[in-house]
């Protein structure tokens, strides 16, 4: 009983319990937000408006030029929309997982460890902010508009690729959030570094890859697999060649990359928590 080595079934049980606990903590926050409906509606509108300014900047650019790196406005809108929805989903579901440093500093990480619920569930569900739906709604509208304007042949395969790319993208962004959180167990001021990846990453993905230098694009593809979120599958959907000339099969690799990311992230998170529990700060 006390051998300390987790059995596979126990790990699975923990994961199921973790997701359930996440669910009821989130439900509590949503209910408490909904107690102030007017304030929630205003926050949602503000969130929508600020994220829409991003896209407005792109539209202003296109009022001066017809194409950006060879991409037309609907194509850019497609890139923007998919990235925005993917990021919005991960930000909504896991955005607070990065608050590790602050939790460690103010001592509330200890409180999380005294409860019979996985720490990550508690952390990610804490202060769940439904107003972040604003970004997802905004991204979906842009994406919808792009899909209507692009005049692509939406075969079932392509629709599936679109969904898998957005969901895998959300998972990969989510991993970056959790990894950023995990690194703060070792270095408590890492949240800035991580913002460069998440917020910086999403801004980068909203533009076509050819406007950036080749080296940068290569770095992004391999160092942070964020490109899988968007560029490779999107280029396939748009019928474009990828500037690095990677094998075509990689376009469909998003779900595999997302799964790999999740596995690595899980291990790093556990290592971080273990490090915290042995150092205490």
């Amino acid at each position, binding site marked *: 009983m006390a051998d300390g080595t987790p059995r596979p079934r126990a790990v699975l049980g923990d994961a199921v319990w973790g997701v359930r606990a996440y669910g009821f903590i989130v439900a509590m926050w949503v209910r408490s937000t909904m107690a102030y409906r007017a304030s929630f509606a205003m926050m949602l509108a503000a969130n929508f408006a600020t994220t829409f300014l991003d896209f407005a900047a792109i539209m202003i650019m296109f009022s001066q030029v017809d194409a950006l790196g060879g991409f037309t406005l609907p194509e850019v809108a497609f890139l923007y929309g998919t990235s925005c929805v993917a990021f919005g989903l991960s930000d909504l579901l896991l955005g607070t997982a990065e608050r590790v440093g602050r939790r460690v500093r103010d001592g509330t990480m200890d*409180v999380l*460890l005294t409860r019979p619920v996985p720490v990550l569930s508690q952390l990610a569900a804490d202060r769940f902010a439904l107003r972040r739906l604003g970004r997802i709604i905004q991204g979906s509208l842009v994406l919808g508009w792009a899909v209507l304007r692009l005049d692509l042949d939406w075969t079932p395969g392509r629709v599936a690729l679109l969904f898998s790319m957005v969901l895998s993208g959300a998972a990969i962004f989510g991993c970056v959030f959790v990894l950023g959180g995990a690194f703060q167990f070792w270095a408590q001021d890492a949240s800035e570094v991580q913002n460069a990846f998440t917020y910086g990453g999403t801004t980068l993905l909203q533009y076509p890859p050819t406007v950036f230098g080749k080296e940068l694009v290569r770095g992004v593809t391999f160092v942070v697999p964020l490109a899988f979120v968007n560029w490779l599958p999107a280029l396939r959907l748009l019928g474009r060649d990828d500037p690095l000339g990677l094998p075509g099969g990689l376009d469909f690799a998003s779900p595999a990359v997302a799964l790999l990311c999740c596995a690595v992230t899980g291990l790093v998170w556990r290592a971080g928590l273990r490090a915290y529990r042995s150092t*205490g700060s």
Partner: protein
Amino acid sequence: MSDGDGEFIDVRELTKTFTVRRKTGLLRRTATQVHAVDGISFALRRGEMVGFIGPNGAGKSTTIKMLTGILTPTDGSLRVAGVDPWQERTRLVRRIGVVFGQRTTLWWDLPLRDSYGLVRRMYRIPRARFEENLARCVELLELGDLLDVPVRQLSLGQRMRGDITAALLHDPDVLYLDEPTIGLDVVSKARVRRFLVALNAELGTTVLLTTHDLSDIEHLCKRVVVIDHGRLVYDGLLSGLHEVGRGERTLVVDLERELPPIEGIPGARTVRTEGPRQWLAFPASASAAPLVSQLAADYPLVDLSLREPAIEDVIARMYAG
């Protein structure tokens, strides 16, 4: 499993060593080993209420964190209710309650009622049991009017009562209290103490509390465990601690006018004078009553107050002696 009559909390040669890295140059860092807890052994029986005291930085919090499964020990063995805290954290935490005086375990923005609802689901407490426990705590800790107030709007004393309730809803066998009365006013303190005494007597909950306030211990615990510099320096009755540490209480006396230092009161000596105010020290084990009556008979008294010895002083004297 057997955690009945034997040692309910069993700590043997518990050690925690931290590696502290300090910048010593532009790029150089030196690592030093800090022994926060250095080979402590003690045991608690089921239903005991024990004070765990020591000066700041003595290793109290580190020990509590190891007992609650937050920190992994560097060395030694540790058992709480038959469970190894650091290997089976999630199993252990269902059987313990923790109250940190310095920070709340509640959700800052949620009303107490919602916080308790979350606690119920996290610990999977059957609803009837939950309602019963909540009702009892609400009554004894007088929380009735506060259940719908967000935690951030509660006063320190109210919040502490809310925290204690949250820690008890799942019927823990052990309750750890880290500075439960810090910053509380006299009324709140008394209320919390009364509640803890009743809890221990009626439900047999084992309680380990750390505090800076020796009067907490006097009201609550017969036994104290004292640590300093990570080592156990005393484990026994509170009365014995005063003898070992030759603890002294101080009577602060306000006289009608400035007088020479008070003399001729048996068992007491004047340690300080300042205008009409004088400070008299006497052994903590002695009663203040005969002293006060003799003072009142011999001197023109205006006012007086009694100060308990500070734990730091008692421990400092234990070392000096």
